[in-house]
């Protein structure tokens, strides 16, 4: 029903564009004074008046009707006032299931009565919604039509509406982010009620596999985040060691040395590398790189495990090369030609020009790119889930297995989970920590870029 209603609104708005446009043209023809807005603005203005308020009403109605109907249904259910909230919601969901036709057992007469009540309420709601929306639309169309005239500043009105719409769009992203943070913080706080913050932040042992049912056999449990953070740190460091020099050097080669055809061929290839799904990198890490790393480690006489920090880190490094390369490439290409010529005219070689003029000038962009890549590495999940390891160990041996924050979140939330158990809630605390770390990195990256942005 609401689908038809939205289509009708769109159609009416479109129609009002033409009607308004025609009316404006008619009033402007032969008018003695100069008209303010061109006919199309009057048309658009009428369309906005017709469509937007009605659409907002529709959305509000759709958002609110369910909870109102639920209230009404449960209020009329016999004996509901004596029930606790969870029992009420159980009854409500049963009523709704039956109304939708999913009958698992023969419903009781009370339920059947409630279902009939629900259905009639829904019908009333739908009719009322159509009536209200249609009325809003009609009033809007009338007002939007009546206001057309030579003096009316339709262009200003339309531009203001567009501004509001853009403002709304930018709010959507912000509000979503805030919602994500809020949900993280909420669950993390529940975790910290069970495990002290200090133990979490400074504990050196991470053994979250505790029993969630009385009959399970499991460890005592320890929730010290440091070994997990350490694993993330080691793998990120390895990936940076792989990616930063490779990325920057390839960017320098592509912008300064490669001829145009080579550049045209290689740049898209790098972009493809950026588009490879991380799970494919994960396959590559666990099936190809990890065994090779292990045999290398054993050959060197270093204790090596099948999954290693080095394998995961190296493949992750390959994954972020395109980031660093393409951001550095942009930064270098943005250095004006005048800088290069100025340096060449002083008798500087190409190498000197790159080292002493171009790189310093492009540095903010490059650093920004590196930090963005780093926050990406810290948050990367799939590669490490497949190729790193599960046991939290504080080791500097890159051939050993380590675990990361993201890996632990995944393992904690897989399988049996209960949301009042520290094992499950720990995932949210880890998520919060991870979020804070990447947020810091991004802030530093943005600040660096802004602070050292050179005016050429």
């Amino acid at each position, binding site marked *: 029903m609401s689908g038809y209603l939205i289509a009708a609104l769109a159609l009416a708005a479109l129609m009002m564009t033409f009607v308004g446009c025609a009316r404006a043209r008619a009033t402007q023809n032969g008018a003695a004074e100069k008209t303010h807005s061109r006919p199309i603005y009057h048309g658009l203005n009428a369309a906005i008046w017709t469509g937007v308020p009605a659409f907002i009403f529709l959305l509000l109605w759709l958002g609110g009707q369910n909870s109102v109907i639920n209230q009404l249904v449960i209020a009329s259910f016999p004996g509901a006032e004596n029930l606790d909230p969870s029992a009420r919601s159980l009854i409500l969901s049963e009523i709704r299931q039956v109304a939708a036709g999913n009958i698992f057992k023969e419903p009781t007469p009370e339920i059947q009565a409630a279902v009939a009540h629900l259905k009639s309420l829904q019908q009333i709601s739908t009719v009322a919604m159509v009536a209200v929306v249609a009325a809003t639309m009609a009033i809007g169309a009338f007002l939007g039509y009546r206001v057309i005239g030579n003096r009316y500043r339709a262009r200003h009105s339309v531009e203001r509406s567009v501004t509001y719409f853009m403002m709304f769009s930018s709010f959507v992203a912000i509000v979503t982010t805030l919602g994500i943070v809020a949900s993280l913080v909420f669950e993390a706080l529940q975790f910290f009620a069970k495990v002290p913050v200090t133990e979490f932040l400074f504990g050196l042992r991470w053994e979250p596999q505790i029993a969630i049912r009385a009959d399970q056999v499991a460890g005592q449990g320890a929730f010290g985040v440091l070994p997990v953070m350490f694993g993330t740190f080691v793998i990120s460091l390895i990936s940076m060691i792989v990616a930063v020099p490779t990325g920057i050097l390839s960017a320098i080669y592509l912008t300064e040395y490669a001829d145009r055809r080579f550049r045209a061929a290689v740049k898209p290839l790098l972009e493809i590398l950026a588009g490879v799904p991380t799970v494919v990198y994960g396959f590559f890490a666990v099936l190809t790189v990890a065994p090779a790393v292990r045999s290398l480690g054993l050959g060197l006489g270093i204790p090596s495990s099948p999954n290693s920090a080095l394998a995961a880190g190296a493949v992750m490094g390959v994954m972020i090369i395109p980031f660093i390369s393409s951001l550095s490439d942009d930064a270098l290409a943005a250095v004006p030609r005048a800088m290069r010529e100025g340096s060449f*005219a002083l008798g500087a070689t190409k190498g000197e020009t790159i080292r002493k003029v171009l790189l310093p000038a492009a540095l903010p962009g490059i650093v920004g790119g590196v930090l963005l890549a780093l926050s990406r590495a810290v948050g990367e999940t799939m590669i490490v889930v497949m190729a790193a390891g599960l046991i939290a160990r504080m080791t500097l041996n890159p051939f050993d297995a380590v675990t990361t924050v993201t890996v632990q979140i995944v393992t904690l939330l897989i399988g049996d989970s209960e949301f009042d158990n520290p094992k499950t809630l720990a995932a949210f605390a880890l998520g919060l920590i991870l979020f804070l770390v990447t947020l810091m990195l991004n802030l530093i990256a943005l600040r660096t870029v802004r602070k050292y942005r050179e*005016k050429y």
Partner: protein
Amino acid sequence: MNIMSEATVEKALDQKMSDANFKMVGKDVSVYYGEKRALFDVNLNVRKNTVTALIGPSGCGKSTFLRTLNRMNDTIEGCRVTGKITLDHSDVYDPSVDVVELRARVGMVFQKPNPFPKSIYENIAYGPRIHGLARNRDDLDAIVESSLKKAGLWNEVKDRLHEPGTGLSGGQQQRLCIARAIAVSPEVILMDEPCSALDPIATAKVEELIHELRANFTIVIVTHSMQQAARVSQRTAMFHLGNLVEENDTDKMFTNPDDQRTQDYIMGRFG
């Protein structure tokens, strides 16, 4: 007979003197940008310790010619130069020539001031450093100071040598670029419309500077301003559609040019 021979001798001597006076010689210089020919067999000599102005309407090839003198055209893709250009009688396009060394001898100042995004000090020290002109910090300080003094900028910036060069005004930036060029002790300085981005006061300062620099350097300047050419140069060359129309003493050029096109251009009838 006697008088005649004396006159001939004097003329020959003059000729020889002026030959020796040619710092750079361009012979049948043509430039192609891909298929397009931008310069047609230009023969133009640059005299020692003289300011030579290159004038002409936009797109006439004067900047192109200027850039052939220190091979800045090498950095442009698809650019090809034919003919011969010599600096002190040695061919600058000879394969054995190191273009880095050439540009150290023939410096350049650009249309838009282009200081590096570094401090004032580092801007000047850049050239001497890469060419190893200073043995120690004191040497470098001395070079920076003398270059800034020669460029008439010392008094304005001596208290803020370590602030960014990009923070200076446009005129100061351009003089900084000239100081930067001077710091590597070139023999020739090429200037490509050095005042086109400057206001009249900054322009006057740069012109005064050019005038002073003539004692130590050979200068070639491209300009769109007839008055500027008349004020700063001793020799003027007029380009039109990729051809050299006329090259003469500046005084003669602006009072009694040999070519009708020069006359028309200077009087503002075209261009």
